[in-house]
């Protein structure tokens, strides 16, 4: 099995061994992309993940070596180790890891040529700039800047880059000046190997709102079933009683059953019917006396 490593220099062999240990000791092995993350932020992310997940940076070739040496289905991770990759090890499940990594992302300034992850909006309001060439620079990229009260002000809220569009150099510069940080920067999970399955990010995005809606729906369905099928539970017995009472009252009124509890409803109904007929009669020439309405 030492097929690949026996020619490697010692430091490389140590790296590979460390990766192999990480794989052996964790139920989840992931490959993350670290492209464009400043070193300071990497430290920050590591700190946030401490106790939950470990990040191991290594050259892609060494990652490949390690995967090959471990062998088996984990080798499939190989094809996801591209660019500036790192390994991540954890005992959490891949959905949780994905969520965790999303949560460690922070906002950063956009670099020219990057894609807007969402609509980039410049809000209206005052800026800290004194009047100067900045006004023209902002206006040039379509930001409605103006001078007001000796300060540069954005006249109205404006979307300068739509989601998915490329951010040009001029806009990137303007955004930096305005201190707008549109980019989500953090570890991007490329793939996670967990219990013999490789999970890619598209499988790991959780729509929590959909879950919430489904919980509400399920609870409604249970409530409906309990009431409609008359299966009393402490939560629904009130509604069931209410239904029975409403039905009884309705039947009582519909059938004109003169009982104290509903006689007022019956009177009300008679009164409304009388008014309906009175108005119809009035429309056909019958003069109503004042008391009628």
């Amino acid at each position, binding site marked *: 099995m030492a097929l690949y490593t026996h020619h490697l220099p010692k430091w490389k062999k140590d790296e590979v061994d460390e990766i192999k240990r990480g794989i052996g000791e964790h139920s989840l092995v992931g490959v993350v992309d670290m492209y464009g993350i400043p070193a300071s932020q990497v430290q920050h992310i590591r700190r946030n993940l401490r106790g939950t997940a470990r990040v191991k940076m290594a050259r892609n070739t060494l990652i490949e070596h390690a995967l090959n040496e471990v062998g088996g289905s984990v080798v499939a991770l190989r094809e996801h180790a591209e660019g500036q990759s790192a390994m991540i090890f954890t005992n959490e499940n891949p959905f949780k890891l994905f969520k965790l990594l999303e949560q460690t992302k922070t906002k950063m300034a956009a670099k020219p040529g990057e894609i807007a992850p969402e609509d980039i909006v410049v809000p209206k309001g005052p800026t800290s700039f004194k009047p100067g060439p900045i006004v023209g620079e902002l206006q040039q990229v379509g930001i409605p800047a103006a001078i007001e009260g000796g300060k540069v002000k954005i006249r109205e809220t404006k979307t300068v880059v739509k989601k998915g569009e490329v951010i040009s150099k001029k806009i990137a510069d303007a955004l930096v000046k305005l201190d707008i940080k549109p980019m989500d920067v953090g570890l991007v999970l490329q793939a996670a190997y967990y219990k013999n399955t490789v999970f890619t990010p598209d499988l790991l995005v959780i729509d929590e709102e959909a879950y919430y809606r489904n919980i509400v729906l399920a609870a409604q369905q249970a409530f409906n079933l309990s009431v409609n099928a008359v299966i009393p539970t402490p939560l629904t017995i009130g509604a069931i009683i209410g239904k029975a009472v409403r039905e009884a009252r309705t039947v009582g009124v519909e059938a004109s059953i003169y009982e104290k509890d509903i006689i*007022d409803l019956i009177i009300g109904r*008679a009164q409304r019917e009388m008014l*309906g*007929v009175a108005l119809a*009669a009035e*429309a*056909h*020439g019958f003069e109503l*006396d004042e008391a009628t309405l």
Partner: protein
Amino acid sequence: MEYIYAALLLHNAGKDVTEENVTAVLKAAGVAVEDARVKALVAALEDVNIDEAISKAAVAPAAAAPAAA
């Protein structure tokens, strides 16, 4: 509105809303009957679909009666 109630009573009982019938009902209730009003009522209702007028009125409903507890 005694006159209207008399008409409704007759209609519900399946009787014709005639001057005679309305007068009889009102008298039985001790009302001093005004002939002219009876005539006017009967004439007016001649062209009215009473069932329809009733059912329209009955729709009104629910929200009305406030917390009658």
